[in-house]
């Protein structure tokens, strides 16, 4: 059995009022109501929920505060909110709306000291630094604005810097694998896992439980986020967890 108990997270990307799902973070399709899905995954035994505003950075605001306010009346597990959070004031609003953690991507790159400032006020445990990674020739580049804008920043170096700045966790999304259901970018994940000492949530590519089992042979996985296969009812939370446990993984049932 692996040492770390792997957390199974439901990732819900929201545009306006709808849960959406695309491929490579693009070509977004409506797949449901975020509050209903959050409640459903909670009841099925998911360990955490990640609510991301997919277009927030485009419009310069986060529209999820009211959604989280409603969701957390009946969802009693940790909820992380991300997208369009640009200041300590926004973080404060997010936490007061009922979020336990906030996720920063675009703003972390524009304003790295926001990570440090936020960690000092609220504690590292509530700061998740999000990285959108795209494979380049021999390296990975960090993207912002939901995989739309390149930054020239090296993902692995950036992950180390985020840890140093005070992030409590990293959400590592492979833009290349995102929405493809073809499995994870093993090389990217192994590289980041070997370089940082904080928990790393893996996102992008989960198509079936076997993908996680394959990855677990190489990496002691802290957490993995599922989106497509949950939203399209390909697998239920319980089914995923049972399969992981049957293959010797340490997962909460």
């Amino acid at each position, binding site marked *: 059995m692996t040492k770390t108990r792997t957390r199974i997270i439901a990732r819900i990307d929201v545009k306006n009022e709808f849960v959406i799902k695309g491929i490579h973070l693009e070509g977004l399709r409506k797949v449901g109501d975020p509050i209903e899905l959050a409640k459903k995954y909670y009841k099925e035994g998911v*360990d955490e929920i990640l609510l991301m505003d997919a277009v927030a950075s485009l419009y310069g605001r986060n529209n999820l505060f009211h959604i989280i306010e409603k969701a957390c009346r009946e969802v*009693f597990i940790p909820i992380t909110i991300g997208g369009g959070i640009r200041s300590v004031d926004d973080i404060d609003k997010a936490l007061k709306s009922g979020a336990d953690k906030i996720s920063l991507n675009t703003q972390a790159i524009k304003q790295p000291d926001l990570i440090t400032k936020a960690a000092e006020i609220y*504690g590292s445990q509530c700061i998740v630094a999000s990285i959108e990674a795209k494979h380049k020739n021999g390296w990975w580049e960090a993207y912002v604005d939901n995989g739309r804008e390149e930054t020239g920043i090296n993902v692995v170096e950036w992950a180390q810097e985020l840890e140093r700045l005070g992030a409590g*966790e990293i959400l590592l999304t492979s833009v290349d694998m995102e929405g493809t259901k073809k499995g994870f970018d093993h090389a990217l994940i192994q590289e980041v896992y070997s370089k940082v000492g904080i928990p790393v949530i893996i996102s992008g590519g989960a198509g079936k439980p076997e993908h996680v089992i394959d990855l677990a042979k190489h990496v002691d996985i802290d957490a993995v986020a599922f989106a497509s296969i949950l939203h399209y009812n390909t697998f239920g939370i319980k089914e995923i967890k049972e399969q992981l446990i049957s293959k010797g993984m340490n997962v909460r049932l």
Partner: protein
Amino acid sequence: MNKKIAVLDYGIGNVRSQLNALKYLGVEAILTADQKEILNADAVILPGVGAFKHGMENLEKHGLTPLIKEFIATGRPFLGICLGMQLLFEESDEFGNSNGLGLIKGKIRKLDTENEIGLKLPHIGWTGIEPGPQKDWTGTILNGIAPGTSYYFVHSYAAIPAEQSEILATSQFGNQSFCCAVEKDNIFGTQFHPEKSGEMGLEILKNLIEKIK
């Protein structure tokens, strides 16, 4: 009349889920730092995330330290959660040494990652809990919970109680066992978050409500 639980407001952390969980269980939950409201409450919860020193300073700033002691003297149930549990102890060495409320004997120390490979701090996630060395959960806030049930933890520091008999439950971080719940008379503490631990977490809050006479 509805049972009333005061959640202490000292300006830190996400307390909305705490209030929501209590409301969901059918009790009146108020977020307050008001003397009258606190002393009139049927039970009090001290929530908290973040650093010990910052938490203690905020308790002082909001004038809550003497109120907490006054409330506990009434014999009504008092529950500290996460940092709220740590603050019940005498001292912590997080960001230099600072004194806590001193209601339970013992200290707060960082979990050890030096002597074991692959352990990461903060300890984030769902971990099973087991009865303390001298504890039976019958009649406690863990009444009816099966040993091994998992709860949600987010912390880097943990309590080391001086009295073994006050350790209600322990949990594992790698090979280290640490105290994750305490009980001393009407004072309870959980290092994990019952309000974030699904149905089994709500059971603990229900047990707390049942303790209200």
